[in-house]
C-alpha cells in the first residue's frame, strides 16, 4: 500500500510535480541508470572471466538491467537509453573483436536487432505496468479521500444539530431565570439550574467526543499508539461511564490473561463509553449490559451486549454513518439525541486503529463488536 502511493507520486502524468521535485526525480533516475549500467557491465565482465562461452548469459544480464531501470525510473526515456547502450556495450565489450564496434559480422545485425526489440518491448511493458499500478493507487486514494470527506460532512451536520439542542436549553433556562428571578419559587429555580447542568453535561460529552477526533492524524488517518493493557482501558471506561450513570447495571468480563494491544487508550476508552451510553440510553435493556474482551490469533475483540429493544434492521447498515437523524420522524420518539455522532466517531476511531466495528441484533437485544489488530510495538 505504501509502495503504491510512493510510486504514484513519482509519476508526473498523474501528480504534477513541482520544479524542485522534478529535478530531484531526474537526479535520482539518472543515478539509478548509471549504477545499473555500471554494475551490469561489471557483472558481465566478472562472469566472462569465469565461464567458457558466456555470450548468451551476458545478454541475460543486460535484460535484467533493463527490467530494473524500466521499473525504478519514470517515463520511457531511461529504459530506452539503457536498451541502446546495452546493445552497444555487448557489441563493444563482449563480441569479437573486443573493444571495437563491429556491426558487419555475419548474422550479428539480426541478433542485435532481436536483442534491441526485446529490450524495447520489456522497457515499454514495465513502464506501462507501473503506470497502471499508479493509476490504481491514485483511484484508491481518491476513494479514501471521498470517504473521509463524507465522514467529515456527516460529522459537521451532526455537530451543528447536536450542539444546538443543549445550547438552546442552556440559553433558554438561564435567560428565563434571570428575567423572572423574583417570581420563581425556590423549587422552580432549582429545576431550571438542574436543566442547565444536565444540558451542560451533555454538551461536555459531545465536546469530548469531538476533541477525541482531533487526536486522529488528518493526513494519514492514524493515531499515536502505545502498548496498553485491555483490562485497564475497560475498567477506566466503566468508571467514567458510572460518573454519568451511577445507577447503570453493567457486568464487566475481563479477559482471563493480561492482553496488551497497540492503541491510543483514551480513544478506545471513548469508544467503549459511547457504546455503553448508547446502550444505556436507547436499548431499555432488561438485564445488565455486558462488556467483555477476548483475543484470537490476530485480533483483540471488544463486545458490548444489551438485552433491550435491539436495533432497527433498516438502520443497522448505516448506524455508524452519522446519518441517523436525517430521516428522522421515528427518531424523535425516544428522544434520540446524539446517537449518530457518538457512533460515527466510534467508527472513525476504530478505523484509524486499523480495526473494524459492527452492530448486530442477537435475538434478545443488540451487540456492538469491534476489534483491534494485534501488532508489535515498533
Amino acid at each position, binding site marked *: 500500500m505504501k509502495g503504491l502511493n510512493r510510486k504514484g507520486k513519482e509519476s508526473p502524468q498523474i501528480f504534477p510535480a513541482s520544479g524542485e521535485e522534478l529535478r530531484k526525480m531526474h537526479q535520482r533516475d539518472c543515478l539509478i541508470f548509471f549504477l545499473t549500467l555500471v554494475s551490469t557491465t561489471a557483472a558481465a565482465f566478472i562472469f566472462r572471466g569465469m565461464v567458457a562461452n558466456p555470450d548468451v548469459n551476458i545478454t541475460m544480464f543486460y535484460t535484467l538491467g533493463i527490467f530494473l531501470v524500466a521499473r525504478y525510473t519514470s517515463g520511457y526515456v531511461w529504459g530506452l537509453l539503457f536498451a541502446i547502450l546495452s546493445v552497444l556495450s555487448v557489441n563493444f565489450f563482449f563480441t569479437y573483436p573486443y573493444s571495437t564496434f563491429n556491426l558487419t559480422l555475419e548474422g550479428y545485425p539480426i541478433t542485435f536487432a532481436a536483442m534491441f526489440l526485446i529490450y524495447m518491448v520489456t522497457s515499454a511493458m514495465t513502464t506501462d505496468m507501473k503506470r497502471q499500478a499508479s493509476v490504481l493507487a491514485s483511484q484508491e486514494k481518491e476513494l479514501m479521500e471521498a470517504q473521509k470527506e463524507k465522514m467529515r460532512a456527516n460529522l459537521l451536520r451532526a455537530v451543528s444539530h447536536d450542539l444546538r439542542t443543549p445550547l438552546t436549553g442552556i440559553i433558554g433556562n438561564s435567560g428565563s431565570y434571570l428575567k423572572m428571578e423574583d417570581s420563581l419559587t425556590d423549587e422552580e429555580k432549582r429545576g431550571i439550574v438542574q436543566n442547565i447542568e444536565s444540558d451542560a453535561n451533555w454538551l461536555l460529552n459531545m465536546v469530548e467526543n469531538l*476533541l477525541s477526533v482531533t487526536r486522529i492524524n488528518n493526513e494519514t488517518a492514524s493515531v499515536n499508539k502505545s502498548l496498553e493493557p485491555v483490562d485497564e482501558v475497560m475498567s477506566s471506561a466503566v468508571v467514567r461511564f458510572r460518573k454519568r450513570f451511577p445507577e447503570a447495571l453493567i457486568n464487566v468480563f475481563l479477559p482471563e490473561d493480561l492482553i496488551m494491544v497497540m492503541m491510543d487508550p483514551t480513544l478506545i476508552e471513548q469508544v467503549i463509553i459511547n457504546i455503553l451510553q448508547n446502550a444505556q440510553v436507547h436499548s431499555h435493556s432488561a438485564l445488565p449490559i455486558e462488556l467483555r474482551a477476548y483475543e484470537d490469533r490476530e485480533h483483540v475483540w471488544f463486545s458490548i451486549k444489551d438485552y433491550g429493544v435491539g436495533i432497527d434492521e433498516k438502520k443497522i447498515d448505516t448506524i455508524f454513518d452519522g446519518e441517523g437523524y436525517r430521516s428522522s420522524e421515528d427518531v424523535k420518539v425516544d428522544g434520540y439525541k446524539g446517537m449518530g455522532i457518538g457512533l460515527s466517531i466510534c467508527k472513525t476511531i476504530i478505523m484509524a486503529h486499523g480495526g473494524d466495528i459492527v452492530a448486530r441484533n442477537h435475538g434478545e437485544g443488540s451487540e456492538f463488536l469491534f476489534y483491534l489488530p494485534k501488532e508489535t510495538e515498533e
Partner: protein
Amino acid sequence: MLQKLSILVIEDEKSICDFITKTLNAQNYKTTSAHTGKDGLAILTSALPDLVLLDLGLPDMDGLDIIQQTRRWSSLPIIVISARTQEREKVAALDAGADDYITKPFGTDELLARIRTAIRHSNKIMTDSMNNNRPYSAKGLTVDFDKRLVTVDGNEIHLTRVEYKIVSMLAKNSGKVITYSSLIDQVWGPYADDNNRILRVNMANIRRKLEKNPGEPVYIFTELGIGYRMIEDENIE
C-alpha cells in the same frame, strides 16, 4: 482552624477563576487570584500561599516554567488544572514537580478533595516522619507499612515483593496520581527499562488479588496515559 489556609489561583479564564475562588472562600480558604503567569509568580514569591492551583494554558508563559521555578525554592503543593486531552502536558507537569492535577471541567467536590489531599501530604512531610508509617486503610483495604501486611476485609492478601512495593507506594501517596515513570523509578530503580509492560503486568495481578470486581475497581484507579491513583486514606485527621 485559627489560621485560614491560603490558596493562590493562577488561571486566565475569569469565569473559571471566579467560580473557584467563590467555592474556596465558602469553604473557609483564603484565596488570591492571578490571571497571568507573571503576576502569579510575583504573588507566589511575596505572599507564600499554602497551595497553588495552576492552569497550564496561560497566555504569557508556560505553566511548566512556573512549576520549575517554584520548585527551585519551595515544595509547596501545586495542583495543575488542565484539559482532558493533554496527557503529555500532565505527565510533564507531574514530572516537573506538580503534586497532582485536576481535569477541566471539574465539580466542586473533586476540587476540594484534591486540595485536601495535597495539603495533607504536604503536612505529612513537614511534621513527624513517624506519622508516615501509620497504616493506610480505606473501604476495607489496609496496608500496614511496619508489618508489610496487606489485608482486604480482614483477610491477608499475599503479594510478591514487587507487588507490595507498588501497593505501598500508592498507599503512601493515596489520593494522588502517581505517574508510570515515578512508580518504575521507585520500584525498579532509575536504570530500569523504560518499557512499562512489567508494571502493567504487576498491576493486573495486584488488581486481581485486591479488587472484588477488577472490572470496576474501587481501590486503584487507572488514569489512562498517566499513571495510577489509590483511593484516599480514610484515617485523615
